[in-house]
């Protein structure tokens, strides 16, 4: 019976072809440094899953943000665990993405025909840092408030259009409910969508070109 159901689905979805092309791709030479991209993808999914769970209780309002997080940490069953994973996973993701980039640089994997994969990867790095920056404000404690004050002030140092960038980031001249709300929106909607889209393109290119050869002495 399961065989019949699978055959029906396979005929319409091409599951066997998908498996052949995605999962049974030739792995040129096992190397732990080449697993950091997959590790980044796993962390992205982990952050997505724990982040979705956090929005069940978190409230992006100056009146409630801190209290709602205190509630998650102290009163909700396993809230400490889910927020803990999200908190440390964020730091780990930046670290893993960075080491992944370093590996690609050192093994010269960014060269022809993988330049686009590299450029998209830079976008992924920036979006990941953006996630860290926007997420840092959400607890709305002293550290979050002043970190965002400083961070947006740095963005405001851009010549000519700096003041506009600062106001656009803060949603006004000062940090306010608008800042918290737009950072939240960026954190849970805009940046994750950008990340997901870029990851899709990044993965397509990796499947298309395969892994680069590990450099040898002759290289």
């Amino acid at each position, binding site marked *: 019976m399961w065989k019949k159901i699978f055959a029906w689905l396979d005929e319409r979805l091409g599951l066997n072809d998908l498996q052949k092309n995605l999962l049974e791709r030739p792995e040129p030479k096992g190397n732990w440094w080449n697993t950091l991209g997959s590790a980044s993808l796993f962390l992205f999914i982990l952050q997505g899953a724990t982040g979705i*769970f956090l929005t*069940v*209780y978190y409230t992006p309002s100056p009146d*409630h943000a801190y*209290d*709602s997080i*205190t*509630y998650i940490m102290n*009163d*909700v*069953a*396993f*809230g400490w*665990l*889910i927020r803990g994973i999200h908190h440390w996973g964020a730091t780990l993701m930046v670290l893993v993405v960075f080491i992944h980039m370093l590996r690609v640089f050192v093994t010269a994997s960014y060269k022809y025909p993988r330049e686009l994969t590299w450029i998209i990867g830079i976008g992924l790095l920036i979006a990941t840092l953006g996630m860290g920056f926007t997420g840092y404000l959400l607890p709305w404690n002293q550290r979050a408030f002043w970190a965002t004050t400083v961070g947006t002030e740095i963005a405001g140092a851009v010549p000519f259009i700096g003041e506009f960038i600062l106001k656009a980031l803060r949603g006004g001249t000062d940090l306010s409910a608008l800042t918290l709300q737009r950072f939240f929106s960026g954190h849970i909607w805009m940046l994750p969508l950008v990340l997901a889209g870029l990851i899709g393109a990044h993965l397509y290119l990796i499947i298309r070109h395969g892994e680069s050869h590990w450099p040898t002495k002759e290289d």
Partner: protein
Amino acid sequence: MSEPISRRDFMKASVYFVGGIVGAAVGIPAVGYLIEPALGGGGKEAWIPIGKMEDMPEIGKPYPFSFTRVQVNGWERTATSKGGFVIRKSENPEDILILDSRCTHLGCTVNWKEDERVFLCPCHDASFDAEGAVIDGPPPRPLDRHAEFRVTEDGILEIFYSEA
């Protein structure tokens, strides 16, 4: 000794066992996290003063009353308004009917319409008579009654309220 277990079967059993542990380690926290507010809460009881008997002199006239219950939901205290109607059936201060204003259909608040002498629910046009019995509409049962009440020495009517 029974049949020796094959390498393949041992691997299969191990994968299911470890997979089960991993599944539980992820699933139990996830479900617990989501259903936490649904567990516990409620069960609080109190005598609540709803009005002076001398302010409700007329027999057969529904006098509205309301009170609020404060609950801590998550990180916030939420005040919920409740209410109902007191109807004297005779001069005897103990001979009264206390109806809850919560419609028994889907929980909207009913209003007293004096000219037709009915309680009307604005949500689905249900109507109840002055005793709380269903006249028309979808409610499955008459309006709830606060059967436990007392009149204090100062003539204040109190109802016994317990949270669901």
